[in-house]
């Protein structure tokens, strides 16, 4: 009897130990939600492969979640359901709604590492860190604009000169510039920043859009309307129809290939400046969700730090069309090589040095998507005067200050 008891005990212990060993060896899977296009996924896989080779036992699983809007809905739904991924990308203005579900990343970074992140890209308290960032630059068709403008005045003159009815049928065949006021109010926000203007004051308690700098920027924006193709379509899909456009640097591959397809040459340049040189930063950050097993959190944090290494952010930027997010990344060999071989990059680097981040006001999503888009659309389509549209916009922004 005793023998049997001992035997059963030994077998049970053995099974338990085997189970524990198996559990210990089970790879930690990091679920990473993203929305990158198919062409960029191989580069993500490459980053994961390098990380996994350094960290056996960790498996990075990239999960595509559709459009940015779909990604946001899924993140919010996952937080409500308590079924969050390990980490995800998101825009800064999505963060306030889910802030409590996120793991603050600052404690995992040294002061030097934090200081290395491009200051314009750093989220307060390093709750999240930047990943895929781009900047607004000027695209111009060299066949129409041999020398890019450097000032607002030059930009305006070139817009006027390039708005032409080539066949004289009364229909404009080419516009000086292209604007997407509803889809891309950042085009106007670049002008606002160049004129030392802003939507809100520094502590986000007051609307400053209606002050002198804002009015002047809006009036300049409105003055471009007769010489601009105003649309909701992607401008590079209609290459040759516009001579110049302010657009994200991440779109460079599309602009260049579209121009080549049309037998034209498209180049990039820093944005024309006014009081100062400035441009709007675009793109998303990385966040880790706290409601996950510790092993997954540790792996996610390790992967986040890995992505910020100079050679990794440099590699990702070089292959994806985005920008390195750390200062050391800008100096990395891979980025330097990219700069030496791709003449669209110089403009991005110049503009990133004067990049302006989007407002971190918790209601910025509404401010942008409801108020600024309408303001820009009304002005560029001439349905309201600058004064009328601005008065309504300022009132609506003020109503959104409280949250």
């Amino acid at each position: 009897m005793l023998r049997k008891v001992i035997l059963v005990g030994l077998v049970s212990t053995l099974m338990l130990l085997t189970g524990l060993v198996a559990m210990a060896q089970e790879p930690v899977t990091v679920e990473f939600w993203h929305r990158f296009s198919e062409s960029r996924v191989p580069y993500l896989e490459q980053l994961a492969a390098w990380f996994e080779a350094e960290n056996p036992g960790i498996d990075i699983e990239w999960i595509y979640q559709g459009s940015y809007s779909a990604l946001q809905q899924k993140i919010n739904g996952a937080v409500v359901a308590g079924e969050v991924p390990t980490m995800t990308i998101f825009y800064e203005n999505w963060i306030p709604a889910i802030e409590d579900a996120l793991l603050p990343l600052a404690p995992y970074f040294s002061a030097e590492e934090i200081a290395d992140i491009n200051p314009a890209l750093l989220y307060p308290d390093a709750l999240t860190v930047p990943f895929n960032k781009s900047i607004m630059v000027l695209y111009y068709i060299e066949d129409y604009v041999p020398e890019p403008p450097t000032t607002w005045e030059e930009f305006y003159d070139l817009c006027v000169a390039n708005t032409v009815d080539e066949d004289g049928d009364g229909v404009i065949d080419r516009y000086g510039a292209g604007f997407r006021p509803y889809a891309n109010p950042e085009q106007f926000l670049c002008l606002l920043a160049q004129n030392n203007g802003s939507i809100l004051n520094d502590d986000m308690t007051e609307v400053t859009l209606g002050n002198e700098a804002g009015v002047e920027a809006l009036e300049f924006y409105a003055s471009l309307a007769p010489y601009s193709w105003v649309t909701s379509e992607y401008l590079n899909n209609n290459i040759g129809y516009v001579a110049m456009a302010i657009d994200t640097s991440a779109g460079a591959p599309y602009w260049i290939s579209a121009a080549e397809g049309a037998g034209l040459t498209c180049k990039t340049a820093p944005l024309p400046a006014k009081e100062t040189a400035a441009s709007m930063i675009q793109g998303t950050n990385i966040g880790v969700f706290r409601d996950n097993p510790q092993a997954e959190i540790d792996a996610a944090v390790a992967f986040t730090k890995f992505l910020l290494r100079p050679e990794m952010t440099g590699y990702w930027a070089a292959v994806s069309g985005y920008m390195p997010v750390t200062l050391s990344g800008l100096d990395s060999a891979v980025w330097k090589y990219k700069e030496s071989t791709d003449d669209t990059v110089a403009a991005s680097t110049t503009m990133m040095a004067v990049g302006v981040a989007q407002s971190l006001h918790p209601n910025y999503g509404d401010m942008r998507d409801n108020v600024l888009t309408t303001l820009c659309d009304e002005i560029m389509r001439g349905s309201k005067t600058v004064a009328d549209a601005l008065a309504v916009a300022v009132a609506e922004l003020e109503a959104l200050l409280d949250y």
Partner: protein
Amino acid sequence: MNRLEKLAFWKRPIPDEWRSRTFWKDTAWAYIYLAPALIILAIFTFYPFFSAFRLSLYKVSFTNFPGTYIGFDHFRYIFHDRYFWNALWHTLYIVGISVPVTLFLALLVASLLNKSLRFRTFARTSFFLSYITPMVAVIMVWRLMYNESYGLLNYFLSFFGVKPIAWLNDARYALPAVIVLNVWRYVGYQAIILLAGMQGIDQMYYEAARIDGASGFQVWKKITVPLLTPQIFFLLIISMIGSFKIFTEVFVLFNGPGPVRSAETLVFYIMRQGFFGTPHYGRAAAASIILFAIIFLVTLIQMQVAKRRVHYQ
């Protein structure tokens, strides 16, 4: 017996079949067969429906769901929001034009298809194609046709000396563009329903009319149309509800609510509140309830009118 007495079921005598075991057995089986459908309905229709009512009273927090109870604040916000009134006006505009025009054209098409035409089967199939083709694919094709520079529509108009129209890029044409697409899409479907109704009309009415010397138009007006009122009424309700809920057409055609929000409909407004910009699920739920109330009210009015106007024989 007044209405209240009719409702007082506890005063009524117990029906005889209730005493039969077979009755209860059959009833139990009926519910067992219905159970899968009822469970699916309960989970995917009733629960979200009543949840929307609850959410509309909360400032929703994702990290502390459902969030803070705020009573009817969302409704107050919506009724003071200029975009809501714009969206309501655009929706009513679409419903007001699209529903009667589609029905009228469908009636004409059905009347033609009811004649002994050559290639009648081909014509019937062709008209129905627009309805069975996936909506997004159809809208993408219309986007191309509406294109200002190389669209088919402007190409045809150019023969008449009309300068290119920015159908999708000019606030004046945005709603007409949506209406034309909507009418085109549903004419075929409605025509097939009406055609089925026409073929169910007893021939004796037509024979009697012919004997009385009625003209073709008189027969159509006095016999065909009145006896089609059940189908017309059905289509009126279905298309009215569909037009109130129009969203995909706008979203795909314009990549947004149209120039200067000129084509923003109520469902687009709801989507924008809930899913674009800062997500306001409570506000979106409140707007959904307002849309439900509008559709419910209009349907009730239609049903009252139908009591007097619909002829089943």
